[in-house]
């Protein structure tokens, strides 16, 4: 089978997108029925007219979305998208691109959901920067896998061992992440002899999160993730106890 052109690929993707959109808009239209529409009591106030309802605008939006989704489905079918929608070639499935995108997605998921709430921000961001730079510089599939495993294992460990918010200040996951970061950095440095860019990775991975978190916490005086983290806790302590009195006094 010949590879279809880009427009046909797009119409095949539109076929699935329109079906997804029809399902979503139908679900939310059904959910909108929870909001009183005709003269029911709402927010403690008895109303009698349809135009008082908080459901009017959502009905208009999800109704519009449903109509547009059907129009998109019709366009897709008429353009031949439906015929191509059931084959990988038809929807323009690119295995290597999907592999890279899904490993990046997993890394970001592990970072945001597993690491950022629980692990010291400097440590987890250092690991992220090292992993993303090493994994995706130059387009090596095996490196992407190593990077993905490093971050996902750290994220899963933090998530599984310290699931409850009460335990987020514990340091076991910090040490584990640090160990993984050091290991990955050593791997990066072994490759740095032949790839000059990789020599700067450890420096960027330490400095960027360190500067950002310190600027946010001490210059802008804002909340930062995992204040009780292994490294940030020490920085905060010495900032207020050792450094600040120097100019405050």
């Amino acid at each position, binding site marked *: 089978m010949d590879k279809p052109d880009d427009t046909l690929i797009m119409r095949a993707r539109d076929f699935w997108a329109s079906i997804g959109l029809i399902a979503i808009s139908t679900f939310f239209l059904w*959910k909108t029925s929870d909001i009183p529409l005709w003269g029911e009591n709402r927010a403690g106030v008895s109303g009698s007219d349809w135009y008082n309802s*908080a459901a009017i605008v959502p009905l208009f939006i999800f109704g519009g*979305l449903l109509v547009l989704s059907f129009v998109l489905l019709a366009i897709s079918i008429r353009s031949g998208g439906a015929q191509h929608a059931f084959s990988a070639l038809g929807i323009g499935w690119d295995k290597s691109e999907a592999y890279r995108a899904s490993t*990046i997605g997993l890394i970001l998921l592990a970072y*945001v959901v597993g690491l950022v709430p629980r692990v010291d921000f400097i440590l987890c961001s250092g690991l992220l*920067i090292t992993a993303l*730079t090493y994994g995706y*510089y130059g387009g090596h599939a095996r490196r992407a896998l190593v990077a993905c495993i490093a971050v996902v294992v750290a994220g899963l460990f933090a998530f599984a061992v310290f699931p409850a918010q009460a335990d987020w200040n514990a340091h076991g996951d910090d040490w584990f992440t640090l160990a993984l970061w050091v290991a990955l950095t050593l791997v990066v440095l072994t490759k740095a002899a032949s790839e000059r860019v990789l020599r700067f990775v450890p420096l960027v991975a330490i400095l960027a999160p360190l500067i950002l978190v310190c600027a946010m916490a001490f210059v802008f005086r804002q909340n930062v993730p995992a204040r009780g983290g292994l490294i940030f806790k020490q920085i905060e302590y010495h900032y207020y106890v050792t450094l600040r009195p120097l100019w405050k006094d």
Partner: protein
Amino acid sequence: MDFILSQLAGFGTAFVGLAVDPLTYLYLIASVFLGITFGALPGLTATLAVTILTGFFGNKIPLDYSLIALLGAYVGAIYGGSYPSILLNIPGTAASAATAMDGYPLAKAGRGGEALGLTTTASFIGTVIGTITLLIFVWVLLLVSKNIASPEKALLALFGILLSGTLMSEDLVIKGWIAGLIGLAMSMVGLDPLLSEPRYTFGWSYLMSGFQVVPVLMGAFAIPQIIDGLTHVEAGKVLALKGRILPNLRSIRRYLPTIGRSGVIGTGVGALPGVGEDVAGWVSYGVGKTVSAEGDKYGKGSLEGLLCSETANNACIGGALIPLLVLGIPGSPPAAALMGAFKINNVIPGPTIDPEIILRVVAILVLASLTMFLMGLFTARVFIKILAIPQTIFLPVVMVLTTIGSFSVGGGINDLYLMLGVGAVAYFMNLMKYPIAPLVIGVILGSLFDETFRRSLFLSDGDLSVFFSRPGAAILLVLNVGLILSQLPVAKRAFSRLKGLSV
């Protein structure tokens, strides 16, 4: 005359107030530098620069400094996009896509320095044209906008979403409208603005206050950019810069009519709600090609063609701020990010905005464009070196910036989950060629639309004629309906038949 003089006096006071403050320069230099860097690095955009700085500076420093940082980055990034367009043949931002058409052939012909110098000058003049227009027209529109009531506001918000959906779709127009509706739908989450009725909260207390603007902006603009940038490894070869960057006055004088025309076009396009710098660049390029005596040279290394797009995209900045400041409707995607910054600072852009803020915005734009001009002429070689930095070094740091910026705005860890969720949706929308800007504009304008639409119905006791009995509302209703009808296949066929007859 008195009116213009009083505006100039107000502007002068605001300008001097900012100019004598040393901190102004610190924020200006840092933000313009960062903006040019973001613009120069393919894969990072002006919207991303403003979005990230919104998370970082949005509500953490006084509003003036926050605006300096955001507007400085905005001006710098739109200009910075010209570097890779000219030297790599890859537009640094969508706004500079038309620039590459003539910029790269010029650099290949050994005229890269001349092209960069004139581009810098044209971008400066373009920004100033847009800024002056903003200074004058914003007041006229503010006077008119006093008569704008709920029905007009609702229809205007809808028009902004529809128009951005129509003009920003790369593929089918319907995809732009769907993106806008998804944005509107997202803005429905939380307590409704009139009766505090909870909608789509699924029992999660975090959702009671609705989707926060900054995590949505970060998710929609930053996450897909990061995934896309890391997925597609494209290393272009930077052409060596030849020739003097400092332009001579004779060539500036020669191209002044082109620069002036493009500045006016850019400002006009920017003033349309929801239409961004990329459209301004292409429209100006198209007009230039039609009216210019050397139109046949466009695309083959014409300085005029280069200046058409580069002037217009920078002039668009001032234009895009007109609907934002007057009506509370962003004129471009970066302006939508800017609106997020206003919101988290409790400044509501629109007819009730403090006029002092507008004067300060104008003064900041002038200062930012001057900083950009000087940096562009005297430190261009630094930015050319930056072009050599691989995206894979820069994007992970952007991810960390995005995370901490999103976290610190207020909602904590839940904001990060929201950012990631919106990012995943935006990534798939990008894959299927749905424009993201209408979604963000929908999220930002959704509550305005909801509130004003329902208030109109409240006040008229459910009488729908309120949307066409008032002259302003009637015009806007016709525009909305006309925009939808113009995209129907029947209308398109009729248009093309008419076009054929006129030829």
